[in-house]
């Protein structure tokens, strides 16, 4: 039996890598992916707890997260496409006309 801490640490690591990606990259697509990675880290924690507590609710919650993730990705990519039409770029730092 793997101790629950290990899973927590693993997902903390994955979560942090996701955050790293968001901070590190400028390509919007990669950033979306990193956010997915963060959500997956959450999923891992959920499942781990669910398993540990012997409670299916956690796993059910993961379904919702997945649904949301899918919806988000769809919307996000749509926004990306829309923006790309205007700016011809996926660089997040190109979008800085709204400021101050």
């Amino acid at each position, binding site marked *: 039996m793997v101790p629950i801490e290990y899973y927590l640490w693993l997902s903390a690591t994955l979560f942090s890598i996701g955050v790293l990606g968001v901070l590190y990259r400028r390509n919007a697509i990669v950033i979306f992916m990193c956010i997915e990675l963060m959500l997956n880290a959450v999923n891992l924690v959920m499942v781990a707890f*669910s398993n540990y*507590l012997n409670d299916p609710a956690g796993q059910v919650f993961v*379904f919702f997260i997945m649904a949301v993730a899918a919806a988000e990705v769809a919307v996000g990519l749509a926004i990306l496409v829309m923006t790309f039409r205007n700016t011809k770029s996926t660089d997040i730092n190109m979008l800085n006309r709204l400021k101050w």
Partner: protein
Amino acid sequence: MITNLFYFLSFVAVLSALMVVFSRNPVYSVLYLIITFFAIAGHYVLMQAEFLAVVHVIVYAGAIMVLFLYVIMLLNLNRESEPHKSNILKFAAAICSGLLLVVLVGSLRGTELLKHSEAGEVSSTMGGVKNLGKVLFTDFLFPFEIASVLLLAAMVGVVMLAKAEKKTNL
């Protein structure tokens, strides 16, 4: 055995996650992310959440990542076109996320205080289809239904945004 498997899967997951971040080409990132997802699915299996593992693979690897690839191809982004952030920013990003990791790990204490009473005898059927289905359609019926609103909204939104407009009407 299980522990070793855990280590292996964790290693794969972390490594490929890092590769997602550090790959110059978005397509590679997608592929590495898929590997990460598979590793995570492996973890689910380890935790007897087989059904979830399957759904995970289908949804993430099958649907979401395909969508990513599709958009990358659509926008023709499969080049290393990304401008570089300055090294200082990269360094700062690394420091920040490292700190976050340290803080998270450091503060994730006290697992011994969990209500561990029933644990130890984890039922293998808990993560099964039947069990999950029961919970999903009884306790979580409303969220399940309302998720349709979410998807509908997303769908409507995506159509609205992504559709190319013929005329300027704003």
